């Protein structure tokens, strides 16, 4: 279901009917993609859109289009839980900038989607409310952490959903569920009102069924926000069909990469060549070190960002004899095992005596990764890799093995650390019918290049 199709339906039956239909689909969700339906506010807003349309007024570029937001994005008239026990009953007193921007263009938020608690994970199995199932196989994971958003779009509940991507959390579940997932340039979309994971890589982006829709949603949510000091303007999102110089990242193949993924990627490369694009291999020697860097830098940042959840002001509070006990009991109860694992790693790498060996070293390697990307972009318009080393794995397959779970991020974290624009486009399927995505990466601010390349690739697949 594309945004254009929904817009046609709005024209036909009105926004209220379209929103009611989306809410009905959300309530019938069999995959546990949706955590909560927003009905009262959604219908009120739908009526407002209808009133405008009837009067012939401009109701916005997304008038009456229902969407879902990952439940780490603050919305009115719902809880914002981050899929955690800590925020199980948290109702936000303000809305995220991205939601405000979408509402200003007439889009209507009809609910919230499942994620790994506080976005820590790559399967949505770390949700306090239970996992989301893969669109194509109930025994397999949705991917994550934006698993609920990817499945909600793939199963046709809504034409688009918002996700957040810190190390692959939009792209990897998009790949696992056969939809488009865009991680825009770091800073291109406001993070205000998004439960923070890692401040230096978090970015909000759309999950859609088409590249065109991803472009439209990004165009609405992007831009400098005075409430987020890290926001920047990106280049205008113009579409071109210019032939591209594409670099395939050599380090993406080899150990740990599934044969079906290699095959699909190679087929994609052949299609691109046949369509007249120049494709060659490019070396990013530190590409595979990115995962190690990521699992130092990101835990450091997230341990800091989670320090506010202390049971004092809001969120889960457990009583104790003294202040320390209140902290310990509240945080022990409120966080999941994976949250605690990352908090421990983060505190360790920042602690006095270990900072230089871990955090500082990781930042140095991060600079190397950025330099390698810059060098590669001096000779290529776009870089290409698989989105994930494997198709969706089985539920429970990796839950006992965090390192194996982290490997699912290995293709996506380099772009996150570099802040560049990246997208996952459905490229094919395995023999058993599981989707496989291909990732395209363009320099910072050049989201238009990534989208144009993705659109050309989409037409070939």
């Amino acid at each position, binding site marked *: 279901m594309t945004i254009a199709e929904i817009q046609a339906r709005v024209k036909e039956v009105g926004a209220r009917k379209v929103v009611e239909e989306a809410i009905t689909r959300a309530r019938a969700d069999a995959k546990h993609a949706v955590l909560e339906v927003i009905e009262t506010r959604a219908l009120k807003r739908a009526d407002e859109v209808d009133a405008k349309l009837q009067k012939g007024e401009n109701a916005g570029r997304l008038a009456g289009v229902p969407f879902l937001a990952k439940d780490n994005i603050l919305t009115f008239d719902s809880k914002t839980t981050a899929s955690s026990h800590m925020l199980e009953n948290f109702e936000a007193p303000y809305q995220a900038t991205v939601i405000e921007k979408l509402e200003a263009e007439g889009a209507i938020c009809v609910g919230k989607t499942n994620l790994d608690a506080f976005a820590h994970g790559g399967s949505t199995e770390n949700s306090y409310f239970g996992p989301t199932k893969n669109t194509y196989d109930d025994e397999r994971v949705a991917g994550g952490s934006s698993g609920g958003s990817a499945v909600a779009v793939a199963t046709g509940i809504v034409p688009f959903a918002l996700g957040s991507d810190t190390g692959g959390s939009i792209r990897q579940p998009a790949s696992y569920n056969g939809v488009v997932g865009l991680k825009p340039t770091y800073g291109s979309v406001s993070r205000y009102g998004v439960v923070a994971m890692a401040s230096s890589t978090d970015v909000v982006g759309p999950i859609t069924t088409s590249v065109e829709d991803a472009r439209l949603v990004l165009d609405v949510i992007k831009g400098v926000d005075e409430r*987020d000091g890290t926001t920047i303007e990106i280049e205008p999102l113009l579409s071109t069909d210019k032939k591209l110089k594409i670099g395939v990242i050599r380090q993406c193949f080899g150990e740990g990469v599934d044969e079906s993924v290699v095959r699909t990627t190679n087929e994609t490369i052949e299609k691109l060549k046949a369509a007249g694009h120049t494709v060659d291999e490019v070396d990013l020697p530190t590409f595979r070190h990115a995962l190690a860097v990521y699992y130092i830098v990101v835990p450091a940042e997230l341990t800091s960002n989670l320090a506010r959840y202390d049971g004092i002001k809001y969120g889960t509070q457990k009583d104790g004899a003294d202040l320390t006990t209140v902290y310990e009991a509240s945080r022990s109860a409120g966080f999941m095992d994976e949250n605690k694992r990352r908090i421990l790693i983060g505190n360790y790498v920042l602690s006095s005596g270990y900072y230089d060996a871990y955090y500082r070293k990781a930042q140095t390697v991060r600079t190397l990764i950025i330099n390698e990307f810059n060098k590669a972009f001096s000779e290529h318009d776009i870089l290409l890799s698989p989105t994930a080393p494997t198709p969706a794995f089985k539920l429970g397959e990796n839950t006992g093995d965090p390192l194996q779970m982290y490997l699912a991020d290995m293709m996506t974290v380099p772009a996150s650390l570099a802040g560049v624009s990246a997208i996952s486009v459905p490229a094919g399927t395995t023999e058993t019918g599981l989707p496989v995505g291909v990732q395209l990466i363009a320099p910072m601010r050049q989201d238009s290049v990534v989208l144009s390349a993705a659109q050309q690739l989409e037409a070939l697949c």
Partner: protein
Amino acid sequence: MSDQPTASRQKYIPTIGIECHVQLKTKTKLFSGANNDAREAEPNTTVSPICFGLPGTLPVLNKEAVRLAVRAGLALGASINRVSRFERKHYFYPDLPKGYQISQLAEPTVGPGVVTIRLGDGSEKSVRIHHAHIEEDAGKLTHPSGADYSLVDLNRAGTPLIEIVSEPDMHSSEEAKVYAQELYLLMTYAGVTHGDLYHGNMRFDVNVSVAKEGEPLGTRTETKNLNSFKAVERAVEFEIARQTKLLEKGEKIVQETRGWNEDRQQTFSQRSKENAHDYRYFPDADLPPIYLDDAFVDEVRSELPALPGVYRAAFKELGLDGSVVQSLLARRTYADMILDLQQVHGKQTATRAAHWLSSVVSDEVLVDTSSLTTETLAELSAMVEVNELSSTAAKEVLVEVVEHGGSPRAIAEQKNLLQVSDEGAVASVVDEVLANPANAKAVSDVKAGNDKVIGFLVGQVMKKSAGKANPALTQKIIREKLI
């Protein structure tokens, strides 16, 4: 005391460094649009989602705070770093809503500087500033007595501060106190803070160690959150004595954070080094670096108000005592009025007014002097100049004008303080005094050429006229009559 030989005490040299927190007087907080003036506000009313550390909130830097920090740096004679960055300092406490304080560590906005202090013996001394960094204040915690809970007020959370860190250049409690006073003058004159000590606008942490001369620095203690100059002086004194006593007994100093008990005038142990926080500082990715260019720094420099040094240079011409100058500087409105008088009415008027004001300042006769104007002072001075008022009477008139209003002349008349300069009127009092048999000896002494005794006779005339006779005129008439 007698069994504590002074000689052994003198063997220990104290070394003192001071960290001073200054609240900047911005309209809004350091990272949010919430009102920064919470002095009269109900708890938790000058707050926003950012002050509460709600999920999803982000800090956005208040540019005015940077401007004031730069201004403070210039007042400290410090270099201004063209690139500075924010870092996060982590610890858990209910008054710290995010679980970290946004501060600066490796790259502060204000670099090294120097502050000159003036001691009681007239000597000057330089105290080097290591750096000054920008950071946010925490909220306030109160513990109602008898209650099994504490109350959190986040009004102050996010108030912009600069922390001025000195080098350990001070070696006595007097130096510490005078340094604190000088920082207060610099920061209030520079206009970066309201300087309301009662409300904690400036707070001092003193680091004190003692060691024998020629030996490496001793183990230091840090006594935190002192909010008066007197407390700074007393806390340093107490620590020097406490540490010296321990060392003399052969004991070791524990590196620790101490608090100040105002009632008992003692420091007390709060937290030892073993229990010290590991703050896990690291760069705050939510805030881009602060880039300052020369044009901005020059602009701030051009806006810098007159600092105490400007006043001190001007007052030098008046030949005022150091203590008079300090007491004038302590109330800037006074210093401004004297500077004004000096420029408009000349040195003599300014000097006279300076002495009046410094004595009323030190006597603390006048609490609210907001009604006092340079016109009043100039008028009073003119009356003294033409012998209409004695110096003493002028002070009395001044107090009355400030406390109840009115013109100096009207008050002087009403209080019957105007000097009698009518020659005939004074002469008749002189005649009475000279005719008094009790003064016969003095009269004959003066006639015999003992000039010194004239003063006695003048005093008698003054007494008789209830202080109103113009003393110079009186003397002139006595001379004419006797010599």
